[in-house]
C-alpha cells in the first residue's frame, strides 16, 4: 500500500496506541467541568460576578482538555497545529482588542 501513497515519502505521524484510561479520565473531567458550570448557575445564590468568572475559568479548562486530549495537541508531532493556533489567537486577539480599544474607549 505504501507505493500507492499519493504523498510520496513524506513523514507520517502515527499515534501510539494508548490505553482507553486516559480518554475515560479526560471524558469524566469534561463532564465534571460542565456540571460545575451548570451547578453554579442553578445554585443562583452566589453573586453574578463570581459566577461569570467561574464560568470563564471552566470554559478555558474545557477548551484545554478538548484540544489536548481529543484534538491530540498533547501528543508529539503536533507542533505545526499548535504554532498555527497560537498564531491565530495572537493575531485575532491583537486585532480585536486594539480595534475595540481605539473605537470605544
Amino acid at each position, binding site marked *: *500500500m505504501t*507505493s*500507492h*501513497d*499519493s*504523498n*510520496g*515519502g*513524506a513523514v507520517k505521524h502515527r499515534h501510539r496506541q494508548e490505553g482507553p484510561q486516559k480518554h475515560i479520565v479526560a471524558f469524566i473531567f469534561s463532564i465534571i467541568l460542565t456540571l460545575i458550570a451548570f451547578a453554579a448557575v442553578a445554585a443562583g445564590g452566589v453573586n453574578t460576578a463570581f459566577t461569570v468568572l467561574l464560568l470563564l475559568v471552566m470554559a478555558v479548562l474545557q477548551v484545554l482538555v478538548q484540544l489536548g486530549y481529543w484534538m491530540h495537541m498533547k501528543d508529539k508531532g503536533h507542533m*505545526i497545529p499548535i504554532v*498555527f493556533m497560537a*498564531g*491565530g489567537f495572537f*493575531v*485575532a486577539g*491583537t*486585532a480585536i482588542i*486594539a*480595534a475595540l480599544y*481605539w*473605537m*470605544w474607549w
Partner: protein
Amino acid sequence: MAHAHSVKRYKGLMDWLTTVDHKKIAILYLIAGGLFFGIGGIEALLIRVQLAKPMNDFVTAQQFNELITMHGTTMIFLGVMPIIFALMNAVIPLQIGARDVAFPFLNSLGFWTFLFGGLLLNLSWIMGGAPDAGWTSYTPLSSTDYSTTHGVDFYTIGLQIAGLGTLIGGINFLATIITMRAPGMSFMRMPMFTWTTFVTSTMILFAFPAITVGLVLLSFDRILGANFFNPSMGGNPVLWQHIFWIFGHPEVYILILPAFGIISEVVSTFSRKRLFGYSSMVFATILIAFLGFMVWAHHMFTTGMGPVANALFSIATMLIAVPTGIKIFNWLFTMWGGQIRFTTANLFASGFIPTFVMGGVTGVMLASAPADYQYHDTYFVVAHFHYVIVGGLVLGLFAGLHYWWPKMFGRVLNEKLGKLEFWTFIIGFHLTFFVQHFLGLLGMQRRVFTYLPNQGFDLLNLVSTVGAFLMGVGVIVFLINVVISFKQPKGVDGDVWEDGRTLEWAIPSPPPEYNFKQTPLVRGIDAFWKEKMAGNKEMTPAEPVGPIHMPSPTILPFVMSVGLFIAGLGFMFTKDDFGNGLLNFLFSNYIITGIGLAITFGSMLLRSLFDDHGWHIEPDELNDKGVKA
C-alpha cells in the same frame, strides 16, 4: 493491491471543467486571471483618458467612481491574486517533489469559486451599475443611503464567493507544503518560492476571515436592514475601516511575498549562484508576515484614533523596512560576483529591485503619522501603492511567467519580444506613476473625476496618461509573444535555462501528469543543482518504480460554484420589485437563493456519500511513455 481502477477520461472542454491536475488548474488560473487583468487594465486606461486633460467629460462622475472601484477590486482580487495562484499551482508541487497538491478536489473548487465570484462582480456592469464606493467600500458611502444601486451588493457577494476560493487555495498550499515534501527536504531546504508561498498561505488563512466577516456585516446592513455600521442605530462606521484593514494590510503582503519568492529564484538562477543569506531571507519573510498583521491602522491615521495609537502604528510600520531591506541587500549580494545573464525574466527581476525600493521609501514616508495628514487621500498615496503593487508584484509576475513559461507549456517565450515588452512596460510604468508623487504633493486628491486647469496638474496628468498607454503596449507585446510561442512545437529541454537549481527543472517540460516517476531524494538546498555539481544527470530516486495513485477528475467543484453563483444573485435581489408577480415571488421568498444553495449542498452530499478512490498509473505504462524521471 494492483487493482487498476478504470477512470473516465474526458476530452476537450470537459477535460478542463473536470480537471483536478494542479498543472491544468494553474493554466485555468492564468487564463482567468489574465482576462480579469485585461479588464482591470482597460478600466485603468479609461480612468487615465478621463484625467488626461482638465475639465474632461469623457466619462461622468458616476461612471468614474465605478471605474476606479472596479479597477482596484478587479486588479487585486481577480487579476493578480489568481495569477499568483497560477504560478503557485504550476510550481509548488514540482518544487517540493510532490505529485499533486494535498487536496486536488479543493484545488479545483477554489478555482471555480474564484471564477464565478469574479464573473458575478463583473456582471454588475450590465445589471444596473458597478460598485462605486471605492475598492475599500468605506461606510457610510457604501450604505444603501449613499450607494443606491446594487453595485455594492455585487461587491460584497461577489468578493465573498471569490474569497472562498482564495481561502481554500491558501489552506491547500499549507497542507501541501507541510505534508508532501520529498524525502530529505526539510523546511530549511525548501526553495525560496515555496517558503514565500507557505508564509503567504498562512497570511491568507489569518487575514481572509476578517474580510469574510466584514462582507457579511455589510451585506446584512444593505440587504437585510441590519445596523452594524449605522451610527444612528448604535452601529459604528469606523468598525468597517478596522475590519477592512485588518484584512487589507495583510492582503498587500499576501500579494508581494510571492513576488519576493519569484525574484529570489530568478536572480539566483541567472546569477549562477545560490541565494545569498537564505536563512535571513526566510527570517525576513516570516517577520514581514508577522509585522503585516500589526500595522493595519496606519491606513486610518486621519480617523482620529489619537496620538498614542498613531505613534505605535507608525513605529510598527517603519519596522517593516528592516526585513524588507534585508531582502533587497540579499538580492544585490546574490548578483554580486555572479555570472549574470540578462534574460527577460532576469531583466524584470533586476527592474523590480530599484522600483520596489522607491515604493518602499514612499511607504516609510507615509508611515510617519504627521506627514500622512498631508499625503492622505492624495495622488502621493496612489503613486506609492502602484509602485509596490505594479513595480513590485506585477514586475515579479512577469519575471515568473517568463521564467516558468517553458515549464508550464513546454515552449519558450521569445527573448527579443520579451526585452521590448520589458522596456516599454517599465518606462511606461515610471512615466505613469513617478509624476503622480508630485501631483499628490501639489495637492491633487485621489478619486476626483476631474480637475480645474492651471493648478500645475495639467502637464503631469498628460504625462501620466501617455505612460499608461505605453504600459498597455508592453502588455500587448507580451500577448503577441504568447501567441508566437504557441506556434512552436512543444517540448523544450526540461532544464531549459541550463542553470536550474530546484526540483522542477529535473523533470520534462511540460511535466507528465504524475510529475515524478519516482519521488526524488533531496540532499541539500537547491536539490537539482547539488546533483548536477555531483556529476549526476538526474535526481536520485527515493523509491522504486511502482504504480502511481492519481485523483479522479470531477465536475462537482464546477457545479458547486454555479450553485453559489445562483444563490448569491438570488440573495442580492430579494427586496427588488421586478414588475412581474412570478419573479417577485421567486426572489422575495428566497426561492432562487434556496435553489442555488441546494445545488451546492447537494453536490457536497454527493461528494461525501460516494467515495472516490482515484486510479493508478501502472509501471509498464510509465515505461511505455519513455519518460525519464
